[in-house]
């Protein structure tokens, strides 16, 4: 019962939507539109769970005074004040909320990712090796692309960008498509198995 009802809900809603795909009739469209609305409304409650687990994590650390709990205070304070500022004073273009977003969240987020560029430079020197024939081809193509995709490449040889476009459009495209078809088949197979209740991994984590 604890597993059979969700499996049936999944089966029925999945099959209904697949059949709906092939039926253009008005009634079928109504079913479709209602389903879309229902998905949005029911999905909102999942956010509550996400919030709870976040708050829970930080509060436990603060209450138990775990090592570095001061940082958890920073997180909690930031979350609560940001949410309060947004809900109480609005989120318009010139609001304090958007100012904080633009000047605190955006730059930090971008900087976090920019660290990767530095790590890439260090890995370029210390790790990327042409150990095998395959790796050699890979590196050579990479070097061609790296020169051809910057203005310097065009400056060195004006057909460099064309060469890069050709590599991207044919050999690269072919491999991407081959890999993509494989992934598409794999995904579709997984989806089919979930609808039919053969794959039940998603039921996990809530007891039997």
């Amino acid at each position: 019962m604890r597993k059979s009802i969700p499996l049936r809900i999944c089966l029925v809603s999945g099959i209904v939507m697949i059949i709906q795909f092939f039926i253009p009739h008005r009634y079928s469209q109504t079913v479709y539109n209602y389903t879309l609305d229902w998905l949005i409304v029911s999905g909102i409650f999942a956010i509550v769970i996400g919030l709870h687990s976040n708050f829970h994590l930080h509060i436990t650390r603060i209450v138990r005074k775990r090592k570095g709990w001061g940082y958890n205070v920073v997180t909690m304070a930031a979350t609560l004040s940001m949410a309060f500022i947004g809900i109480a004073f609005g989120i318009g273009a010139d609001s304090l909320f958007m100012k904080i977003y633009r000047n605190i969240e955006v730059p930090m987020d971008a900087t976090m990712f920019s660290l990767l560029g530095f790590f890439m430079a260090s890995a370029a020197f210390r790790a990327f090796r042409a150990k095998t024939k395959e790796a050699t081809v890979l590196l050579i193509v990479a070097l061609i692309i790296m020169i051809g995709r910057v203005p310097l490449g065009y400056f060195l040889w004006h057909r460099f960008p064309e060469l890069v476009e050709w590599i991207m459009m044919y050999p690269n495209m072919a491999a991407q498509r081959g890999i993509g078809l494989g992934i598409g088949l794999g995904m579709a197979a997984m989806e089919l198995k979930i609808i039919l209740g053969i794959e039940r991994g998603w039921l996990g984590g809530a007891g039997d």
Partner: protein
Amino acid sequence: MWNKLLNLDRRWIFIVTAICVILPFLFPIGFPTNVTPPTQRIYDKIESVTEDGPAVIVSFDSDAAPLPELYPMAVSLIRHCFINNTKVILWGMNMQGVGIIQMALEDVKKDFPEKKSGINYVLIPYLPYPAIIIMKMGEDMHKAFNTDYYGVSIDSLPMMKDIRNFDQIALAVSLTGGSAWGTWVSFANQKYGCKVATGITAVGAPDCYPYLQTGQLVGMLGGMKGAAEYETLVEAKIAEKGLNFKTRKAACIGMDTQSVVHIVMIIFIILGNIAYFVTRRQRNVA
């Protein structure tokens, strides 16, 4: 010696990289930017839109992390539409994206104070389940969004009177750091025949080529280079129209640096490999 080089503290490499990024900013080289076909196709598609014709959707489907690549694209695309008097619908598939596209809009509006929300552009608020929203847009945009970003009912916006679904959309451009363009392709293009293009971070660009070849993607702006190409095209358009904007070509400036940094990366890779093979031989001999 090679051994010592290989075991160099990586903080030295960080410093070298940082210097190579800063120097071209201070002493610009000014390499010319060439335009590749996937960029040109987006430009041409927007050029082909007649005044008062269909609208263009610019959707910022990413968070703030890939901003240096995607933001100049958003600015140039909106600017291009405003120059041509093309109607624009601005959206974002996630919460942050909507905030960013609004930033871009405010930036461009400094040059176009006469552009009005509801007449020249519409900013759509964030809504959950982007795939579902795109499908609803295909049926009826007025039902997909109740109000615009500023809380005004969509039905009351003059610009939206003539825009019901994707039939009145010339092109939807998805700016993304991930696979959001795929959602546009499956739902907007495949289901409703809307023309879709993408502006994507360089990481994601190779994945787009199969879809460019099929035409499921009309065009693509690939990374900062793509952004620089579009900036160049729009700049030429501004010159052609005799407009007087002091546009800052952020991506074009960045491309000088990009050239230098790529050279440094190539040198690192080659040096590293030489060091590796030399030390390996030494070890084998010993």
